[in-house]
């Protein structure tokens, strides 16, 4: 690393026999090489790893979340790569040998206007990209199908340390096939695949958080308030529901499952549930939509 051997102040001057352009000479060129290498590595990591760790998505929303995660990771790869390229290079290229204090100082550089300007502009552009992406996804447009089909409404009630789900009675004319009958409660959630569900979430005691991981459904259950979250499950299967807000002694055990089934199976499940219900169960007063 010839540059580091030269005197401070003279360090910027090219070697006499070096007619390469500035970006081809150390330290810029080796840093560019390390940067490119790191960016590719980090990019591969960003593309393949995080989304897989999040598991198979069970709703379009979760797919969007995973895509966002991957996109942000890809956008971050060159940033992290640049920082680490400069630090890695400095470990070799600019390191003072030995443990005694260097007798000579480094290049007395007090800022570099153009670099600072570019850095701020680039980080602002990246920030803008994240913002626009996030704001667009924040309010996903309702599809025509969503608007046409009335959603299934499920009242979710958290209490220490269990979840209760209430299906309201069928309303004439809007029923999308669920068996007619009284409102019922259950502690296991069943949902029909492909149909929009709206959860009305509340709590009987402290703050809980209703979290269906693979569907990217999460909203706090607050006592005295009803919060709303919706999702369209797109995958048949059994998925975990966990509490995501520390709620006391058995917070860790406050979990159950959601069974996403075909519409026919859902109807028959609901019919069975209504038949086996001990009697009409009115919707809890605080959970009325």
């Amino acid at each position, binding site marked *: 690393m010839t540059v580091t051997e030269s005197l401070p*102040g003279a*360090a910027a001057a090219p070697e006499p026999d070096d007619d390469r352009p500035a970006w081809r000479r150390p*330290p810029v060129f080796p840093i560019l090489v390390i940067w490119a290498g790191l960016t590719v590595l980090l990019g591969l990591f960003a593309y393949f790893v995080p989304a897989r*760790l*999040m*598991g198979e998505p069970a709703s379009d929303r979760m797919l*969007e979340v995973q895509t*966002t*995660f991957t996109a*942000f990771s890809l956008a*971050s790869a060159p*940033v992290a790569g640049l*920082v*680490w390229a400069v*630090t890695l290079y*400095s*470990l070799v290229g*600019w390191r*003072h040998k030995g*443990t005694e204090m*260097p007798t*000579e*100082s*480094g*290049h*007395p*550089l*007090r800022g*570099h206007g153009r*670099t600072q300007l570019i*850095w701020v502009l680039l*980080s602002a552009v*990246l*920030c803008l990209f*994240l913002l626009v*992406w*996030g704001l667009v996804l924040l309010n996903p447009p309702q599809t025509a199908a969503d608007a046409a089909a009335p959603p299934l409404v499920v009242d979710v009630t958290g209490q220490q340390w269990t979840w209760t789900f209430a299906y309201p009675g069928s309303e004439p004319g809007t029923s999308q096939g669920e068996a007619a009958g009284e409102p019922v409660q259950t502690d296991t959630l069943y949902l029909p695949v492909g149909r929009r569900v709206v959860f009305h979430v509340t709590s009987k005691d*402290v*703050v809980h*958080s209703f*979290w269906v991981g*693979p569907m*990217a459904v*999460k*909203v*706090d259950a*607050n*006592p*005295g308030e009803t*919060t*709303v979250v919706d999702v369209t499950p797109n995958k048949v299967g059994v998925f*975990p529901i*966990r509490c*995501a807000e*520390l709620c*006391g*002694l*058995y*917070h*860790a055990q406050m979990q159950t499952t959601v069974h996403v089934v075909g519409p026919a199976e859902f109807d028959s499940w609901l019919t069975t549930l209504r038949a086996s219900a001990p009697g009409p169960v009115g919707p809890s007063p605080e959970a009325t939509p």
Partner: protein
Amino acid sequence: MTTVTTVVGAAAPTPGPLAGGLIRRLNVLTGVVLGLLLAVAAYWLCEEFLPEPDTGNHKVDATTTITLVTWAIGFLIGVGAFIGPFRWLTGRDLSHEDEMFLAGKDQGVSRYFRFTTDHKVVGIQYLVAAMALFAVGGTMAMIIRTNLAAPGSQLLGPTQYNTTVGLHGIIMIIATIIMVSGPFGNFILPIMIGARDMAFPRLNALSFWILFAAIPVLLSAFFLGGIPTGWSAYAPLSDQAPPGMDAFLVTIVLFAISSAVAGANITTTAVSMRARGMTWVRVPIFVFGTVTSVALALIAFPMFMVAMILLAMDRTMGATFYVASHGGNGWLYSNLFWLMGHPEVYVILLPAFAVLLELAPVFARKPLFSINAAIFGISGIVGLSLFVWAHHMYMAGWAPELNGPFMVTTEIISVPTGLLILVLLGTIWRGRIWMRLPVMAVYAVLWNFIIGGITGIYLSDIPVDEATHGSMFVTAHFHYTLMGGALTGAIGGLAYWFPKMTGRMLDERYGKIGFWLAQVGFNVTFLGMFMVGLAGQPRRVADYDSMFAAGNLVSTAGAYVIGIGMLVFLYAVLHSWRSGVPASSNPWGAKTLEWQVPTPVPLENFAVLPVVTSDFYGYGEEDQDDGPPDGTGPELVLVGSSAATAAGLTVGGGRAEPTAATSMPTGGEPS
């Protein structure tokens, strides 16, 4: 500019009694005794006379709260914290001898166990307190990770587990808040700006001893039923919690007072006591970072204190600020909490980052790359940090219309943060990196903090937060910022200022082994935690699904490596403190003022006060010519009350030679 001033016309204060006064008999032991006595008396009075309410257990909570507050007041009286106000009440004042005694003159080690006002004593006290808190909080972390080593809650019952998680959280939060502003902000900062002590030396001691009184209060939570809430103490869970919660809230109120006192003191000191010529652009960046941090804490911490006072009223008097069934609302609590909670992250980060910015030029042997960018970065973070709090509440259901605006402010904060990274990179750019232990913290932080920062950007995005909020991903993220970033930076600061504070060099061999072991263990631990977080493991759980077993085992193994590394580092610190190699007054060849005074630093630091004519980062600039004529070269002109002033003598030869920085006279006791 003489330093001895006589105010003509002002009556001299009436001297108090000389040696033998009460002031000389008080120490930490008398504090503990008086505190315990008054606490027992308060407990008895409460039991005897507090009315028994019809509902709830308000009496238990009121008794606990009053007893603990009485302990703190009794301790502070017993340690001598109010000796000044007591004297004023009796129409007297402290004599010069009293002040010198309070400053710890000629007292040896015993001054560390008294209400001592010397800022260097307070700095050491804070350092020891922070290390003790880290030891306790770190042990709790080991217990937590042991419990989570495999599914099935290996070690603890749910009450113990939740309490351990909560106490680990608050102990580490307190420790990280004080770890830089306490030891270095008190010991180093006044010397760095050329002052003889803090602006309010007695308030300085008061801030430490309030903190000291708060620690047993916090630990008592273990024996009062624990805290089931974590350190965030969300209401209404904290409303229904056992009396351990009262201990928690008394601790927070005490700590808020302590940090307000310390913050006002440090801010005043830096604003009004800088050496002549030390304009704001010449102020060392560490001072800037610490002052903005404690000033931010002055705004932020009262929010938490208010939240805790409302909680205390809920618990002890049946107020219903947070009880939904009586018209209260938990969102009031979470807003107040996060109004403190997010600025608090930067209260922790800024001084640690400022430490790195301070030591990077020393070990790269070149000037700080653009102090303006650094100041813009720090100021931008401070300003924005007050407007981002509700990103912790995206999923709370509170005011969903505000999610978008809070996402905007949160993501914009990455721009000033990035500027600080640029300043670090620019400072090591083409430097002569002198690879000693302090600068290794810069490298570790550049690795850790990039990860912590990028994962923070994910969390700032609302859709991603739907998958990650409340999960182990969040836990891993904030450990990367607070531990990988802030604590690592503070360790760099400890290695850097250790020679000045203790007079001995920190053992680099064991220091490095411990430091890098902890760093490797840290990355293993929290990468494992990112994995299980993404896969959907909630945070703060005592038990988990078997699908998370692998990642948790990795985390636990990594945590033990951190533990071993920290123990090795602790050994290096303790061993070096006792019997390390004696340090010269400026072993790093640094230019800031604290390295120009002798080691050990004499009482009142400077025999003659320095005058500053440039900033302190002129590495390499003096080599180019014999000091630029426009005065940008480092130039230390010493002017003071000594004969040197009368003779018009400037020490250091006016234009600084490369050795000028080390040629200042050794300071003696001021007359």
